[in-house]
Every structure is written in C-alpha cells, then in structure tokens.
C-alpha cells in the first residue's frame, strides 16, 4: 500500500455528482491499517463506485497532519465531503457501522 495515494474513479463523468472525499489516517503499515484500507476500498466500490476519492495519510511521515483532523486513534477515516465531516475509527471491519458513519445507509436499496 502506498503511504499516500489518491484514487479517483469516475464512472459517470457526465452526471454532475458530488465526489466523496475520504481520508484514511494510518501510522505505518500495520495489520489494522491494511485491514482498514481493504475494507474501505471494498465498501466504496460497492456503494460509491465512481464517485469517491480516498486519500491515505501516514502519520509516521506527516505527523503534523494529525492535529488538523483531530486524530488520536489509528486508523481513522474522515469523510471530508460531503459535509458535514464524519469520523470513523477502527479497522472498518464492522461494515454496518461504516455505512451508518458514512451516512450511506439510506441511499441503499
């Protein structure tokens, strides 16, 4: 996993839809961080295909970024957009909670 990478997938470019900006804070490539990234990617592909953007920030490399998003737990997922900002901590293994956290539940089915 790259320490900091942006993934952007637009499937329906013609539709002016808002992009989901997600930021995942990790500290090195720990099993928890790896798991969080995998889980996040999985959820996004299933629910937000083509309209999401994941930014992974490794605090070991950019420790000063921790303050800005009030990070104290690792891993932490921050939904920057759409507003309001929402935060999820943990390896994102509880998908129900992630969907609630991302406010994606009502959109589904």
């Amino acid at each position, binding site marked *: 996993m790259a320490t900091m990478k942006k993934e952007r997938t637009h499937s329906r470019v013609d539709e002016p839809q808002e992009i989901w900006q997600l930021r995942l*804070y990790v*500290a090195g490539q720990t099993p*928890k961080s790896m*798991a*969080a990234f995998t*889980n996040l990617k999985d959820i996004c592909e299933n629910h937000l295909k083509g309209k999401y953007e994941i930014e992974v920030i490794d*605090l*070991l490399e950019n*420790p*000063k970024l*921790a*303050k800005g998003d*009030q*990070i*104290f*737990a*690792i*891993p*932490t*997922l921050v939904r920057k957009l759409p507003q309001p*900002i*929402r*935060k*999820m*901590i*943990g*390896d*994102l*293994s*509880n998908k129900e*909670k*992630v969907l*609630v*956290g991302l406010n994606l539940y009502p959109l589904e089915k």
Partner: protein
Amino acid sequence: MPRVEKKKTAAKLGKTPTGIHGLDEITGGGLPQGRPTLICGGAGSGKTMLAMTFLEYGARKCNEPGVFFSFEETEKELETNFASLGYNLTDLIEHKKIIVDFVFVEKSEIEETGEYDLEGLFIRLGTAIDEIGAKRVVLDTVEALFAGLSDTGILRAELRRLFRWLKARGVTTVITGERGDGTLTRQGMEEYVSDCVILLDHRIADDLATRRLRIIKYRGSSHGNNEYPFNVDETGISLLPLSSMGLTYEAGIERVSSGIQELDQMLSGKGYYRGSSILVTGMAGTGKSSVGAQFVNAGCSRGERCLYFATEESPSQIVRNMRSIGIDLERWIKKGLLEFVAARANMRSLEEHLLVLQRTADAFKPSLVVVDAITDFSTMGTGLAVKWMTTRMVDFFKSRGITTIFNSLVTGAYVEDSGVGVSSTMDVWMHLVNVPSDLERNRIMYIIKSRGMAHSNQVREFLITNEGVKLMEVYTGPSGALLGSARLAQGAAEKRAALDRKQEMEVNQKELFRKRSVLEAQIANLRAELEAREEEAKRIAGHETEREREIARDVKEMAVKRHMGGGRAAK
C-alpha cells in the same frame, strides 16, 4: 510535621520544581523527574491550574519547554483563562516554549468500526515534544477519552502504554483525573500512575470554600503527609505549609517606638522590641485602631514600610478617621510607605487571608504590620482554626523580623482575654478599657505583659486628642482614682487650693513683716528712753557731787565764822 528531607537512596530521585509556593517545599523539591504524576480532584478543585502552573513555570523559569494536551478546553480558551492569572501563554507559545494542543473527543461524531489504537495521540504528543524539546508534559484530562470512546479495554491498554512511553521518553508528566465515586479517579487512573498521586479537594464549610491538597503517595521520596490548604487567586496557586514555620526566629535587642511617647516610657523607656508581636485588646471604641495608626505613623515618619491589614474599615475610612485625631496617613500612602490590605473577614477563607497577607508582606517587605482585628476571623472557623491562623501569622511575621500589632476586640472590661486565645504567643499585651464614671466614659490602658523588659505597672488614662494618642497619669486622690472631667475638676480644685495657700502665705508674710517693723520701732523707742534715763542719771550724779562740795564749803565757812565770834574757836 512534614519531613521534607529526601531519603538517601543509591540514585537519588530527581525532582522537578513546580514553582508553586509551598508544594515544592512539602515534596522536597517538586514532582518526580521524568515520571508521571497524577493530580486528581473534583470539578473546580484546581487541577488544570496546578498543571498549567507546573508547565508555565518550567517554560519560563527552568528553561524546560512543555507540552499541554488539553481534552477539555481549546487553546484559545486556555490562553484567555490563564491570561487572567498573569500567564502569557501566547508569548510562550510564540517563542516555542509551550505547545498547547486541544484533543477533541466527541462521542456523537465518532463511530467505532473495529480495532484501533491511540497511536495518533502518541504521534501528536511525540511530534510536539520533539518540536520544542519538551521536558514537561500535561495531559488534562486524559479520562475524557473514556467519555468519547466505548471500548474501555482498548483504552486501558493504550493508557498503560502511554504512561510507559512517557516515562521512557524521560518527560515529567502531570496527568489530571476527575475524582470518582469512592475512588480517586473515575477510571482508576491511579492504577496506571503509581509514582506520585496528589489529591485536590474543594470543600465548603460554613458557606466558605477551602481548597486543600494532599500527597497520597510519592514513590521514592518522603513528603508532607498533612492536608495543606491552598489558594488560587490572581497571582496563581500558593500552598500553605502549616508547620514549615517554627520557633526558630532570631530575637534581636533593637527597640522600636510605639509612636506614643508615654507608652514608650512605660515600656522601659524605649518601646517594643523589633520583631515582636503586640496584642492590643479592648472593647469597642477603646482606641485600638488609634494605637495601630499611631504606630504606623511613627514608623512611616522614620521611613519604614508599614502594612495595614484591615478587616473592619476601608482604607479611606481609616485615613479619614485618623486624620481627625491628627494622624495623616494619606501622605505615607502617597509616598509608598504605607499599604493597606482591606477585606472583610468572610470574604476569603482563613487560609486565603493568611496567604494574601503573607504574599503581600513578601512583596511589600514592611517592617511594621498592623492587623485590625484578629477577632473578626473567629466568626469564620472553629476557635482552634483561628488560633492556629493567628499563631501562623505571628510565626510568619517574627521569622521576617516584622513588628506586628494585633488588635483584638474583646467583650467585658476587665476580662483579660485575648479574644481568640492567643495571648501566650504574644510578646506584649496591652489592654484598653472604657470606664464609666460620673455620667461619662473614660479610657484607660495598662500593660498586662511585656516580655523581656521592665515595664510600668501603672494604669494610665488614655486620651485621644487632636494630636494623637496621649497617656495621662491617672489621678489618685483620697476618694480613689479619678478620670476625665473628675480628674480635671480635682486638678482645678487642687490648683485653687494651692493658690489659696500661696495667698495666705503672702498675707502671713506681710503680717510678719509688719509685726517685725512694729517691734523694731518699739526696740528703738526703748533704746532712746534708756539713753535718756542714762543721761538723767549722769546729770543727777553730777549735781550730787556739786552739792556735797558746797556743803563741805559751807561747813568750813561756818566753822571759820564761829572762831571769829566766840572766842574759843577751834585751832
């Protein structure tokens, strides 16, 4: 008694001074260096303030930069709050002496979705420590994490790791914790922080709040075991180690005038000993404050600094009242020689009063102090507490060589009671009494004791005149002691009698002179008569001789004549 000396161990435990007056004293130098200390207490007990004082002092005075991790207040709030205590956090932050980081943990905004750790916090803390080379760290209040996160299992493990990590980094850490129900902290933080635990308490007794501090444990060091009152005000935290003062002060022989000439004479001619404690007792309106003011006035006239601790009147009222008896205190205030500390007794707790007094005295450095009046404090605590407070005041001022007058309001004219039971700690004790006689009240005063000097046993009349306090000899006549107008009347009568006596004597002398003149005249007359008689006698004697001579001649002549006529004349 606190045992403040350190135990002798192989490697002596280093101490980090907190800069809190009194706390460093009872801990023998401060908090354990490079180790975490837990400060627990209820809401508003002063935890944050103590922690910030520790950090600010380190940054400003000890060249030990510090990191403050706040879980409750934002950076701005902290800066504002502590600005009112005179801490310029903004400046210290700008100069990279302090880093304040607000860690926002809000349960409603956090979703826990699986396994996590607090590495984020570690990283933030580590970055801050490295950025300024911090030696001190404050976590205030780390327990807030428990309110925001539900997995206490993870939290406990992580906190344990955090404290180990902080210890390994060698930073001296203060962790605050809210007091729990029956436990020191809500989350049992004391289990993790085992080096030093300090408990703060804020309790209300008789409507007055008192803050207290107790060191519950201090591993590897001896410490004071008592509960120590402490005070938080505009100058920060100060602690009052009750028994750090003792009977070790020096006793000099220098004397200081009481400001009342006659009183100095009663005190073997020279006044009080410098550094002694003087108790002035008396009922209401007997002139206790005037004794204090006169003392202050005399002190300031000599160029000495005086501190007046007033609990009954405002400074301006004291100045006005004393002006009416010819004592101008205002000029000394303007000259900076006189400072007032005025506060109603019930404005602060006893400890706070003592602290304010001590701090003011340490800043102003007076050589004379007047406390007017100690009895006001007896409404605010148990008799024992007031007694202890006064004793501590006495010890404090004595240890600094400050001469102090304690005024004490007593009830009952001749009851020799100090009002708060402290007479035994006082060196001089003067009692003022109002004596009613002949429809007027007059003041008298006497010295009950004066240690280490011969003092007058006289009862004097105490006069408050336009030129301050004066002591008069009490007139004792055949009908007993006389005061006030009776004394004046008696004085006038005596004067009259003396005048009468004088006049009588003058008359007598004149009469004597006259008699003498008469007698002398008589003597002169008699002498003249005597002389006359002597003349007469002489004259008579002269005549007699003449006559005898004539008789003799006559006889001769007759004889001659017979011879010539009779024939037989004697041949």
